[in-house]
């Protein structure tokens, strides 16, 4: 493919313009600031687009700005039009008979949303052999000032970068960076690197965690004991669930134990609480007993008088009746009736006395109970006063809440199936009550708080552990990616070297031999693609050991070899943007000679402001394009354009 023409509309300093080019050598001549470099940029922007489309618009112009170029190859002509304002690209292909082949347009006018993007990359690969703009710049554009820009020491890194396909970074550098990252992450099976350090820290955290297991177990035991003890003390928290909305702040009954209280206050408060509870329970018991006794007194039966009176009457009637029937016996009958009546009354008097004794005993017991109750009540009032002074609740519910806060059964233990209503004081265990009292409960609570403090940093350990484990997963994943990438690149590099190195060295030797008139027809490429030439002593020497002229020739030969390789033998166009300006006369002449040799195979478009080149161009029959009309142009008619047959003749 050669560049046949370039047409610009409001591109850079050109409101419009159309430039034609031919095969072989072309000279685009113009003074400084005439727009020579803009033309080079326009070719690149048309092929690959511009990262700053606004930047290439003619200053002050509001209309559309576009560029188009025509590439001509064997059997086809391709016209590429790019509208920078609308971001559209149109590629039209015609065959030698000007019949239109399949066009390409991006973005596709009928493309549906989400459909794969139409890319020009395959088209460029077909036209040029490669599609990378960076590679195009590196191979086909010779920048200002040098024939071998950026090739550097030995050229190998740059060569490897170009062979990489992007022209950006040396593939060995990428391989080394991947290797370094892999080692930095920590090679698989090793203890080092980021992953190793991270695992060390995770190990430390694991140890810290293990150290907390015993206190945690003990805490579980202590809590269970406390729950059982609280249950044995009969602390029912059910009433704590009653809450009156609108009665101001929550009842103290709803407040769980505040562990921020001084530890010393806990046993003391626990003693008072326990005694208060016991006293309250004693009072309740005394009250229940007294009430029962009073009821017994009320229910106690008296001794009935009616029974002996009736018996007396019966006996007297019977005695009188017998005396009337048998007058001789009336004295005996009356005496008998009197005796029996006296017996009945005697029994009555005995029973009455016994009952009175019982009643007296009961009254005495009731009196003692009353005295005991009054004493208990006084003690309870005294305890309540002390509790008030401590700022503690005095209600039964408050005491329950105080004593029952920390008693949710630990893991694995069942909770009471029939609780007292479920509330701030949680469920209690159902095991048999152990020995101990409120003081023991206070001690358990104190121990529980101490153990809680011991395991307090568990959460920090957990958080750090979670963070590190997440990081470990990321790093492990990253290590797999890097290892796979390293392996992939390593394999591809070896494969590419094996299949291309010898072939490339042979082609390079052919080009160099031609350019050096047969002095250096042999080139050797080492495994790292470093360049060696055979000297006059028949020994291999690195390129740096040769003269500047040989080195320049080698760079041009290298470029041509790369174009051959990457362009797959296509005829392409080189844009040489004032590359010879800084060279001395001898080197410039040599460079021009080399470029003319290149032009035998490829199209060369040389952009220059040097007047002397005009004469050489005229003398050598180059095609000339003048950017400034005031520049004197030699009147000699240029020779007819060389055809592809010329190339064949040259090769012969």
């Amino acid at each position: 493919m050669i560049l046949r023409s370039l047409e610009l509309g409001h591109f850079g300093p050109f409101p419009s313009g159309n430039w034609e080019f031919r095969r072989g050598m072309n000279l685009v001549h113009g003074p400084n600031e005439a727009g020579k470099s803009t033309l080079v940029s326009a070719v690149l922007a048309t092929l690959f687009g511009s990262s700053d489309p606004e930047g290439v618009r003619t200053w002050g112009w509001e209309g559309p700005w576009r560029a188009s170029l025509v590439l001509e190859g064997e059997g086809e002509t391709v016209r590429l039009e790019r509208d920078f304002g609308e971001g559209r690209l149109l590629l039209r292909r015609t065959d030698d008979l000007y019949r239109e082949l399949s066009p390409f347009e991006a973005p596709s006018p009928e493309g549906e949303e989400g459909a794969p993007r139409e890319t020009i990359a395959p088209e460029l690969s077909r036209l040029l052999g490669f599609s990378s703009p960076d590679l195009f710049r590196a191979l086909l554009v010779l920048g200002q000032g040098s024939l071998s820009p950026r090739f550097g020491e030995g050229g190998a890194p740059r060569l490897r970068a170009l062979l990489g396909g992007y022209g950006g970074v040396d593939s060995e550098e990428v391989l080394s960076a991947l290797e370094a990252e892999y080692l930095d992450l920590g090679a698989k099976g090793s203890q080092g690197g980021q992953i190793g350090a991270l695992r060390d820290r995770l190990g430390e955290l694991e140890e810290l965690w293990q150290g907390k297991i015993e206190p945690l177990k003990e805490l579980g035991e202590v809590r269970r004991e406390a729950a059982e003890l609280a249950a044995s003390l009969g602390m029912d928290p059910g009433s704590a669930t009653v809450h009156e909305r609108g009665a101001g702040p929550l009842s103290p009954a709803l407040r769980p134990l505040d562990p921020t209280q001084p530890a010393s206050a806990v046993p003391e408060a626990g003693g008072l609480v326990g005694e208060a509870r016991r006293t309250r329970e004693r009072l309740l018991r005394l009250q229940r007993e007294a009430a029962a006794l009073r009821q017994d007194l009320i229910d106690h039966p008296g001794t009935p008088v009616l029974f002996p009176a009736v018996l007396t009457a019966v006996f007297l009637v019977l005695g009188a009746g017998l005396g009337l029937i048998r007058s001789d016996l009336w004295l005996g009958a009356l005496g008998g009736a009197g005796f029996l009546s006296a017996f009945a009354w005697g029994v009555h008097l005995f029973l009455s006395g016994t009952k009175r004794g019982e009643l007296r005993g009961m009254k005495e017991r009731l009196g003692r109970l009353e005295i005991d109750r009054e004493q208990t009540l006084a003690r309870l009032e005294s305890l309540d006063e002390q509790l008030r002074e401590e700022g503690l609740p005095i209600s039964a519910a408050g005491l329950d809440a105080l004593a029952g806060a920390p008693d949710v059964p630990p893991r694995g233990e069942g909770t009471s199936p029939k609780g007292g209503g479920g509330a701030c004081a949680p469920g209690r265990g159902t095991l048999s009550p152990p020995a101990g009292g409120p003081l023991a409960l206070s001690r358990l609570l104190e121990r529980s708080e101490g153990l809680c403090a011991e395991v307090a940093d568990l959460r920090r350990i957990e958080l750090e552990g979670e963070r590190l484990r997440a990081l470990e997963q990321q790093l492990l994943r990253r290590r797999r990616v890097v290892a796979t990438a390293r392996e992939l690149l390593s394999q591809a590099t070896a494969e590419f070297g094996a299949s291309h190195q010898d072939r490339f060295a042979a082609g390079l030797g052919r080009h160099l031999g031609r350019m050096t008139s047969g002095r250096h027809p042999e080139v050797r490429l080492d495994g790292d693609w470093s360049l060696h030439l055979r000297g006059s002593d028949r020994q291999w020497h690195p390129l740096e050991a040769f003269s500047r002229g040989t080195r320049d020739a080698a760079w041009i030969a290298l470029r041509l070899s790369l174009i051959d390789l990457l362009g797959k033998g296509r005829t392409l166009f080189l844009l040489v943007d004032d590359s010879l300006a800084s060279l001395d006369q001898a080197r410039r002449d040599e460079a021009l000679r080399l470029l003319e040799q290149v032009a035998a195979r490829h199209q060369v478009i040389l952009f220059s402001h040097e007047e002397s080149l005009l004469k050489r161009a005229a003398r050598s029959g180059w095609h000339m394009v003048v950017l400034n009309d005031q520049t004197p142009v030699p009147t000699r008619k240029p020779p007819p354009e060389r055809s592809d047959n010329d190339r064949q003749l040259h090769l012969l």
Partner: protein
Amino acid sequence: MIRLLHTADLHLDAALPELGPREEERRKDLLLGFERLVNLAIKNEVDLFLVAGDLFDSPRPLDEAVARVAEGFRRLGDRGILPVVVPGCRDGLGLPDVIFHRGRLGPVMLLARSGEAEPARIRIRGEEVFLYGGPWKPGGGSPLAPLKRSQSEGVHIGLLHAGGRGEQPTGDRWQDDGITAEEVRACGLDYLALGHRHDFATLGDGERVIACWPGSPEGLRFSEAGPRFCALVEVGAGEVRMEKILVNGRALEKRKVAVEDWENLSDGVAEVGALGSEDLLLRVTLTGVPGFPIDPVRLHAECAEEFFHLEVLDETDLFGSPALDAMAEEETLRGALVRRARILHEGAPLEDRPLLREALREVLVRLAAGGETAP
């Protein structure tokens, strides 16, 4: 009518390692979210502040979180609002040092009974209110079993931490059997305050709402993107009125960004950067067929400061792109690389293929040194 604010799944003190340097700040966000809920409860003069599980993300949250929550509950208590909490799956009662054992949360009613416990009874403005709930473990029968309404007159409210039917949230320590409207209706409760699902959802009896999952008030992960809510509810005997209130501070969002039109990474930086907001946590998923290998790490690095947190996922189809087809045709190292990768990809097990694709992208991005543009 009883007024209540219903929230759940606050997951205070959660570990969020995926947020990297923003983790601490985000953890503070969660606490701010809790305080916003407290303020909302006070402002709306509710009677009850219900937390249906997973108040904390851990059974042993850090002191700072505990102190802030205790302070919040204290503020509620001082205004006569009763906080009622059930343990969730994250802060359940399984461990001896669980925060609920330690009584450091101030005036809070913890419904910690299980089995057939009697409901807690409270009086609110002379009305009897019965509260049902407690920890539920899978395999122990229906989670609704302890929530059968008693015969007593009053308002009956349940609290439960369990998901809807068919849901199997990942990462949780229990698998739920699911709750249906029919089961809730059978319980006879006036309102069931649910937790565990992290998105807002309700269960109804006809037009009447009988149960609700308010969802997490601050999105924790990108599965919880979008607005977050709490429920402001008025409950009477057989009557429920509900208002859904937006409560989240920062927004979590997920966006898919098609890369077809990107000619270089700068286009991507411009497009993704334009979505930026300092309060936004955004997950960008790159999709489509790229014209060049996109480096998500560099894209992230160049856009991250526009966001509170940015995550970039690359789901582009570089491997099957025309750009890669063109490369495969080249007599270059990258051509050899693509050909080699495609051969390996063809023979690799399905689970290893993403790794190969990522490795290829890694090499191409490095070879181009980030300077590649789409032709």
